[in-house]
């Protein structure tokens, strides 16, 4: 966890803590769908570009009322270049957000205003069907201006922090435990049953160990390799469900050997036995992926036709493409497979290298590297193949498809196709949801046709949850607020 300042934090562990500490205009429901938060109700303009939110009588953890101006202040702070927020881009749908973050416009021009103490008006650049989900995220929380003014960057310390969520911060040890206690001023406090929540930063193996030792009630993850073993011992306490994330191998299409070589890209993607990978390496936890976007409500991603081929035929086809690309047993493809250091990743990449070796004769060398070093090399487009796993920001195909848009900041493969960009742009201004998703599906089909990446599987959430912990529901974003949870046996955390 690098920071628990809602304008600055970017990592998943901090997001969980912030979800408990703060509440936005909307909050995440138990099923993962946005429900009314600080805003009790809202209405939208006909073109979907102006939203008006009416706030309820909510209070900060020091008793002060939550005002519309607190949202305006927070959002401006997030996009203000002086805040040096890593996440200013996330508010991109809000009018002028990008221009302000880029320093071209003043923060006061941001598309958010307080019409009165209890009304927030949000102006968007385009209809944004996922806006309500976006509003549940940390960068859209309100912030309490007086305490930030008084203490500057130190306002996140337990002794100063003022928050408006179901819990407030009691203790924060960097690299150690974070303790939250119930916020009695929370507007919905009557329904919050936990008195105390403790977060511990532990690696995956340690989480499982500590669960067995009886120190933990809930783990963020467990090792996929232990699934069968854990299920045999813990039964229904092992919980897994589809997750809004994909495990994709990125391809740099701007440099050899993959530039202009669709046949080679085809050969590599055809030679991956996804079912084997999912069944044996991931112990059946994940779903095989043939296309980047996982299935979402209302969206069935297009699957390439070859996905249905029997294994032997698929391998034969892969070898034909491999030969067509100019490679053979005497002249094999040599490629480095870099992956971020993590034992789960290591097994997948070792399996992948072995599949390419057996099915095609490719000499692929797995090579682990620190995530940061790798990101840098990826951004500089130094890597031919790279770890491109992505956790969606909101449950919409766009969060995955944007990665292949020309000029998008995170398009590290350098893929660029005018037809693809045109479809994404059309979807961006399409007010009708069904037609919009249709356009996105067409765009995704182009990606698959061009083999812009090698999808491997879709992630699943993995938790160990004690049988006496209730109120936790699997949802695709894997975000669950502690305010919904309760223990059947009293005591503990």
């Amino acid at each position, binding site marked *: 966890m*690098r920071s628990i300042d809602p304008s600055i934090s970017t990592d998943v562990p901090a997001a969980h803590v912030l979800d408990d500490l703060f509440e936005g205009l909307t909050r995440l429901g138990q099923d993962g769908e946005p429900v009314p938060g600080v805003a009790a109700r809202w209405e939208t303009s006909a073109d979907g570009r102006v939203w008006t939110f009416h706030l309820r009588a909510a209070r900060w953890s020091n008793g002060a009322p939550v005002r519309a101006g607190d949202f305006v202040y927070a959002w401006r702070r997030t996009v203000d270049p002086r805040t*040096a927020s890593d996440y200013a881009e996330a508010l991109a749908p809000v009018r002028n957000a990008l221009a302000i973050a880029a320093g071209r416009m003043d923060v006061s021009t941001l598309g958010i205003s307080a019409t009165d103490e209890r009304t927030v008006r949000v102006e968007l650049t385009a209809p944004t069907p996922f806006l309500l989900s976006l509003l549940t995220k940390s960068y859209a929380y309100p912030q309490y201006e007086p305490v930030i003014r008084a203490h500057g960057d130190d306002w996140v310390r337990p002794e100063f922090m003022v928050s408006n969520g179901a819990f407030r911060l009691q203790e924060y040890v960097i690299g150690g435990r974070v303790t939250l206690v119930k916020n009695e001023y929370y507007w919905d406090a009557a329904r919050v049953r936990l008195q105390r929540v403790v977060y511990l930063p532990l690696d995956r193996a340690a989480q499982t160990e500590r669960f067995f030792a009886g120190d933990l009630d809930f783990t963020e993850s467990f090792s996929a390799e232990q699934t069968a073993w854990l299920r045999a011992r813990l039964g229904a306490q092992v919980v897994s469900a589809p997750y809004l994330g994909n495990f994709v191998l990125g391809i740099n299409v701007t440099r050899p050997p993959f530039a202009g070589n669709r046949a080679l890209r085809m050969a590599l993607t055809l030679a991956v036995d996804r079912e084997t990978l999912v069944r044996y390496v991931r112990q059946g936890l994940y779903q095989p992926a043939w296309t980047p976007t996982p299935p979402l409500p209302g969206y069935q991603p297009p699957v390439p036709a070859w996905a249905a081929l029997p294994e032997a035929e698929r391998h034969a086809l892969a070898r034909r493409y491999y030969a067509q690309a100019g490679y053979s047993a005497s002249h094999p493809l040599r490629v480095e497979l870099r992956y971020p250091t993590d034992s789960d990743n290591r097994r997948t990449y070792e399996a992948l290298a072995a599949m390419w070796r057996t099915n095609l004769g490719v000499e692929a060398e797995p090579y682990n590297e620190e995530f940061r*070093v790798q990101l840098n090399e990826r951004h500089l487009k130094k890597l031919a193949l790279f770890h491109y796993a992505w956790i969606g920001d909101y449950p919409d195909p766009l969060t995955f498809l944007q990665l292949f848009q020309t000029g998008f900041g995170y398009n590290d493969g350098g893929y660029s196709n005018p037809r693809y960009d045109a479809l994404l742009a059309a979807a961006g201004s399409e007010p009708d949801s069904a037609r919009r998703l249709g356009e996105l599906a067409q765009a995704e089909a182009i990606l698959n046709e061009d083999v812009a990446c090698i999808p491997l599987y879709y992630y699943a959430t993995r938790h160990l949850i004690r049988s006496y912990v209730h109120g936790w529901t699997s949802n695709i974003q894997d975000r669950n607020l502690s305010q919904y949870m309760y223990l059947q046996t009293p005591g503990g955390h």
Partner: protein
Amino acid sequence: MGAFLLRRLATAIPTLLLIATLAFMLLHLTPGGPFDSDKVLVPQIQHAIEARYHLDEPLWRQYLRYLGELAHGDFGPSFQYRNTSVNELIAQGLPVDAAIGGVAMLIAILCGGGAGLVAATRPGGWRDRLPMGMAMLGISIPVFVTAPLLILVFAMRLHWLPSGDWVAGSWRHLLLPALALALPHTAYIARIVRAAAIEALAQPYIRTAIAKGLPTHVIVLRHALRPTLVPLVSFLGPALAGVLTGSIVVEQVFGLPGIGRLFVTGALNRDYTVVTGITVLYGALIIGFNLLVDLCYAWLDPRVRARA
């Protein structure tokens, strides 16, 4: 003595400077900056962040700025943990390592020293071979094997002690990590003490004492103890410095918020100031403890005093 101290201090400062320079330069040469996050930032934001941490300045100026701050005892802001200074991080981590390291060293000195003395009384007998065989094992089995095994046995199977985490003031949380850390040190100390005690017991005046019929434990405690202190102290100096700055493995396995883990995550995340800060601190501790060791020598051994 004063001149000796001055001379040692005079070499300490260039040494620390060298350490700081090496660490600073190495980290700034590495690929991957501290602010490469998941998303590519709008260039202006990237500039804003870099300006805030002076990363936009030429390297030599960053270096001088860093040395200037260092001279005032300021290790600078952490890049990784926003809103936090390296001094604060160290202040938070050091007590954890000091508690665990202190208890570990206490265990090591008591058990190791005791075993070494016992072994020295009857070289070659079972009371020598058993503890020395165990000491050999202790040296040969790495901490990253013993630490998980301790957790497996005492936390997961027997449920006697917690498997990790740090709760200030709780001896139950302290015991397993301290034990894991103490094992190799115990083994080293046992070997050192045994060797020194055997040598001491071979001296003519001890033989006289034995001939006079003094009981073994009296001889050992009265005559063999003091000579073992010289090699023991020379071992303890650097060992204490190492233990104070944290054992990376013990902290990792037990999930402790100490300095060692801070260092590794800092190095992996390009947290320049944290890594250089901890490296300099470690260097300073080594130099400081070595100085202490030399002072102890002088006190323990008049011959050294004459030479110094």
